[in-house]
């Protein structure tokens, strides 16, 4: 059971991103985790554990399904094929407003991982050394350096503060103390298989690589996956904290227009160095020339010995080294948004630029957002996000997020950034019910959270005023009909 727990936790650790739509969802205190300057309609709140999990592939279902994979692979959109999983879990968060300032603190866990195989490497499995015409190319040059893997887990303690300056400007900052629980990477500057035509249908093959692999585990953790033991020493955890700062600001440009900007993860990037527990350097070239026998120097033809030597050569490509994660940085988000708010402040439309950088995934996107503030009981946000640039291919996605107020100040936050990619049950060829995958599905995301909060009084007053105004207005219309 403990093993299952750890395994599940490991899978869940493969992700994050706070739901982007929280950026302008006023009725959710989680917005402060996205933008320290978010205008949150809450006096005091307490967030219970929330999760935001994304499982993503570097390709869409339509890239690999519905046709011959080998043929589809010729048009594979990404440099690498693989999976990315991010899992961000808010452990707790609490905050309150005091006059013009808002304070909050909280803790979260971020897990993520990816495993990418270079597109050419998969292509090599599918086609070998064949060119586009299906002919074996003796000058084949397969470059597999996009193959990589990252596993990272970190915890975060943060303390935020926001200040209103007048009625238009809000500025917020969050101080983060991040603990790297574990981090492992594997990557290549070069990795490939090269064939050189030696004429008469013969070639020489060469495997070459220059890469690295390193792993770091926080001294506070002692995990043994094999016997399921897990030891935690909190005193050591704090010693390795990395400090970063999130900054944000919102400005009410006009009555209906608001600008928002924020940047998370200012701090230790490029300055922090983690010494790896284990580091391996991949470097060298291994020629595949087949066995060699020279009667003047060798005593016997020994093809088996060649393969033994080859195996040793391949093994020697990886050499233990003393490595470090130079340039290790915090998770980074950059947001720039402009929103138009309806006169009644119920609807907001916005254009949102997103920049995301984390160990497993980088991308920039532009989202057209809608935020509906339907009273304190229901908020609904939706967006269409067009990726601009990404480390792996990403398709446009439709996001929906809603916050439903439950009884007693509790609110449920639920959403997904992959609404347009949701699998649906369909009948298969044999008539059995099976899972239908949208052709454009390249990821699945779910975001769920639970929090308790008290709204601001101003809102209640405003609402009462609005209801009184509505009531007066109805009475006036009734009088007019009479």
């Amino acid at each position, binding site marked *: 059971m403990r093993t299952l727990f750890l395994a599940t936790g490991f899978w869940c650790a493969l992700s994050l991103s706070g739901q982007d739509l929280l950026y302008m969802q006023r009725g959710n205190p989680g917005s402060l985790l996205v933008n320290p300057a978010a205008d949150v309609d809450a006096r005091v709140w307490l967030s219970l554990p929330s999760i935001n999990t994304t499982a993503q592939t570097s390709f869409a279902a339509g890239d690999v399904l519905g046709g011959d994979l080998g043929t589809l692979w010729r048009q594979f959109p990404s440099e690498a094929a693989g999976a990315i999983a991010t899992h961000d879990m808010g452990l707790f968060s609490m905050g309150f407003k005091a006059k013009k300032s808002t304070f909050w603190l909280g803790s979260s866990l971020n897990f993520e991982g990816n495993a990418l195989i270079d597109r050419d490497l998969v292509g090599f499995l599918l086609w070998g050394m064949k060119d586009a015409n299906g002919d074996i190319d003796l000058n084949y040059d397969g470059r597999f350096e996009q193959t990589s893997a990252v596993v990272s887990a970190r915890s975060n303690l943060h303390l935020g503060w926001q200040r209103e300056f007048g009625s238009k400007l809000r500025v917020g900052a969050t101080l983060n103390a991040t603990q790297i629980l574990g981090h492992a990477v594997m990557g290549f500057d070069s990795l490939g298989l090269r064939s050189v035509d030696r004429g008469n249908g013969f070639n020489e093959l060469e495997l070459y690589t220059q890469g690295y692999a390193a792993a770091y585990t926080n001294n506070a953790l002692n995990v043994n996956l094999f016997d399921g033991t897990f030891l935690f020493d909190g005193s050591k955890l704090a010693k390795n904290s990395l400090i970063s700062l999130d900054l944000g600001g919102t400005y009410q440009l006009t009555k209906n227009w608001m600008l928002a900007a924020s940047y998370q993860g200012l701090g230790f990037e490029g300055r922090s160095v983690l010494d790896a527990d284990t580091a391996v350097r991949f470097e060298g070239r291994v020629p*595949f020339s087949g066995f060699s026998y020279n009667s003047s120097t060798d005593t016997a033809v020994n093809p088996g010995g060649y393969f033994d030597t080859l195996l040793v050569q391949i093994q020697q490509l990886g050499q233990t080294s003393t490595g470090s994660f130079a340039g290790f940085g915090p998770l980074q988000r950059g947001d720039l948004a402009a929103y138009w708010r309806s006169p009644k402040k119920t609807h907001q439309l916005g254009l949102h630029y997103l920049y995301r950088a984390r160990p497993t995934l980088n991308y920039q996107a532009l989202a057209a957002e809608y935020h509906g503030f339907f009273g304190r009981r229901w908020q609904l946000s939706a967006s269409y996000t067009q990726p601009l640039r990404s480390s792996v291919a990403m398709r446009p996605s439709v996001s929906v997020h809603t916050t439903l107020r439950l009884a007693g100040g509790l609110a449920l936050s639920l959403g997904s950034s992959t609404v347009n990619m949701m699998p649906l049950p369909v009948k298969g060829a044999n008539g059995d019910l099976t899972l239908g995958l949208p052709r454009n599905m390249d990821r699945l995301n779910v975001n769920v959270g639970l929090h308790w909060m008290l709204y601001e009084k101003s809102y209640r007053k405003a609402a009462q005023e609005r209801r009184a105004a509505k009531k007066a207005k109805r009475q006036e219309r009734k009088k007019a009909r009479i």
Partner: protein
Amino acid sequence: MNKATVFFAALALVACQRDLLTVDDLDVTLRPGVVVPLGALDLTLSDVFNPDSGLVTVDPDQTYRLVYRQTNLLDVGVADFLELPSQPTVAENFKAGYIALPNVNAAAAVRFGKLARSITNPAGFAANMAAAQGSSAPIPALPTQNPGNLATTTITSFSTASFQSGIMTLKAVNHYPAAINATVVLANLAGQPLLTYNLGSIPAGDSVSVPASLAGKTIPNQLKFNLTSFSSPGAGTPGVPSSYVPIDTNANLNLSLSGSNLIIYSATAQTQTQTLVDDTLDLAFSAPAGVRLTELGLSQGQLNYSITSAVPEPLSLLLQFPSGTVNGQLIQQTINLLPNQPATGSISVQGAQLFLGSNPAHPYNELPIRYAATLNSTGQQVTLDSASGVAMNFTFANVEFGHALGFFGQQNVNIPADTLSLDLDFVNRLGGSVVFAEPKVQLAITNSLGLPITLDLDVASHDAQGGVHPLGIPPTLLPYPQTATQFGQTVQDTLTFDKNNTAIVDFLTLPKQQFTYGGQVRVNADTLATGTENFVTGTSAISADVLMELPFYFSAQGLGLTDSVDLGTSLSALDTAVQEVALRVETTTTLPLDATLALTLFDDLGQVVYTAQLPLLVSGLLDAATGLVTAPTTSTSEVSVTAAQLPAFARGRWLQLTAELGTGTAPGSSGHPVKLLSDAELSVRLGLLLDVHLEL
């Protein structure tokens, strides 16, 4: 916008993308195609055929040469040609023969008075003489009358003797006063006359000697003198005193016997030292049939003898080899023999040089032995008999010769015919032919046997069609020390059999099913040409080392080797997983060889489902004049199984491999032999093309 509106809008948003795929739409087919270098071999022929193996050598021009050397293929010692048989015992007897006795003497005297008493006419003569004793008186004439036995005598040196020859002389000295005439008859005691002496007239005071032959006479040692035919003219005239003669009745007629040159048949007598026999025995020396030995040098040996003498006196027997010397000295030995006592012993002939041809009538295999017996007198009377003799037995023993001369006869030693089968499955399947251009067989002879040996071999190879290919070696006289000047020397020479004097090229052209061999070794086969003078020493021997040289200067065509392999069902998997598989071979060589590998694949029903030809090797560029490769040749070949062939190929069960090998041919020539050089190189590159088609 109310809540429902928003909800349905969202639902519509979700529902607008209905192009759904399932995992059943995953169509993964792996079609990797790769070409992989399998390996490379760089062979230098000298590394493969190591000259240090002793079987293969490399000439200075790098030509390979298969050398088979068999030392002491023939190693025959002198004993196989000449072995002296055991010599038989030779018996030789000789008799003592007529024995010489020493001279004898005996004497007697007849007193005058005694004679007078035997005179009967005139009567009273005795009285008258007795009366006249001391005085002078006339003696009347006495008429012839026989006075008889008046004296006896005894011979002391023998008791009796039967003479073969000899003279017994009687000397009579007349001391009587008157002349007498008388005949003396010498008789034994029984009165039997033995010898008669006619003395004639013997004047007074005079003497006469009369010899008598003893031949055939047996003379006892006691003898009587009988006077017969006695007469006297008388002396003095009666009455004339002056004519009277002194009368002395004691005056004697002295009679003395002297025997000389006494040779007896038999006797009981004293002997004298004398040579009884001096003769020569031609001892036959046994030799193998047809062998005529004229001279032997013995490294060891002895002549054993056993001699018994029946002669009653001791003998000294000299044994002598008149034609045998040791260090230049005659071989001889004196043996003392006692009567009737066998004498045994031996005479060493170690180091002796014996000449066995001294007898002109039988100038070989005879060894003369001289024996000379001397009787040594003891001075005692012994009973002698000329028939008594000496028995001798001679035996040569432990004879080993140091050298032998002569004619050792004509011998034929058959080499039994036999067959060396080459009917090997491998050879039969090889097919084609291999022709060696310059094979050579050499016999290195080392010979110290001084006799002509002719080697007459009958060797042939047989092909599968029954054709016989004789090697054609003519009868060959092996080198040997031919003249006396080479006596004891060792001759070394080499006989060479090659294409110039034999049909060895045809003989060794492969393949052959069997070799047959046989023949003869002949000794003194042609005496007209080689004479009859043979010699050997005790250590002479002939040995032959065979050296077969087979330069790798050859031509070969159509050598094939076929084998099959049961592949089971191992190929069946190819039908589903492999689109094409090919083995690429590139060879670059300076070898003068062509090689092709043919692959034929059969299914379970014996149907051919796949065939391929793989030219493994293409000969380097050849120079027809020298058979040498002048430039390397590169060839590339590929055995490929295509997608269309794979279904049938995958049914393959039996793979038949047929390799065909031949020598290359120079431009403009065909079948010219080529030379295999040790620095010839072969580089082989192997590559594998694999095109997989695997549906997952």
